């Protein structure tokens, strides 16, 4: 069978989206609470030079995966708006991860 099971496919997508959300949120935490203090208090700009681009790439992957996830599933319009808005706020990825976890649990139980 070429066409995968709908529920398994959707659960896999939600797992990937949650993983990317956590990675994006964690890289931002490291940037804000580790790299930036090291730069400004310790005088070592190398920390932000390394973590900054890593977080930038994580953010791009997060935005791409978010667009892919909502384009490929039946999310309600308010859900889409909330997730996209949260994506542009610091640590909004963690809020989205919780919402995705709830959706995943609902799908798994159904």
């Amino acid at each position: 069978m070429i066409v995968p099971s709908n529920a398994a496919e959707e659960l896999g997508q939600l797992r990937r989206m949650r993983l990317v959300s956590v990675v994006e949120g964690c890289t931002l935490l490291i940037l804000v609470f580790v790299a930036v203090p090291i730069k400004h208090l310790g005088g070592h700009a190398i920390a932000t030079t390394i973590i900054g681009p890593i977080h930038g790439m994580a953010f791009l992957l997060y935005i791409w995966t978010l667009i892919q996830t909502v384009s490929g599933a039946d999310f309600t319009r308010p859900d889409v708006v909330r997730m996209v808005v949260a994506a542009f706020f610091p640590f909004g990825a963690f809020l989205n991860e919780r919402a995705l976890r709830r959706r995943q649990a609902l799908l798994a139980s159904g």
Partner: protein
Amino acid sequence: MQIYLWLKAIHIAAATTWITGLVVAGLAVASRLVRAGIQTAQDPYLLEAVRRWDRFFTLPAMLLTWALGIAMAMQAGWFSSHWLMIKLTIVGALLALHGVLSGTLRRLARGADRPAAILLYAAPATILGIVMIAILVVTKPF
């Protein structure tokens, strides 16, 4: 050889792979619109092949394109240039289009009938975007 030239060469190769994958995905989605619901027995196989290509080649190529592009711009000090800001806007739009196409391919693979009609223009829009980027990068007008 200077590291910049290596970055540039791999950036161009990755961008070519990304854009080719975008055009293929755009055509695969558009084919569902053009044939207005008429499907052949080969459709699921083609769709699955395009999806696999998207996951294993087009997505990594996109990430590599962005990473090397940002590295080059930082090295050359281009972030204050207006042409780069316009290019980044276009590349951001291509990233969004790629996400929509990838999600639509997933939806079609799960049995959805018709994608959004506007996606008929996804492949031409991609070509328009890359033409604008080529002009901006080569001429650096602002």
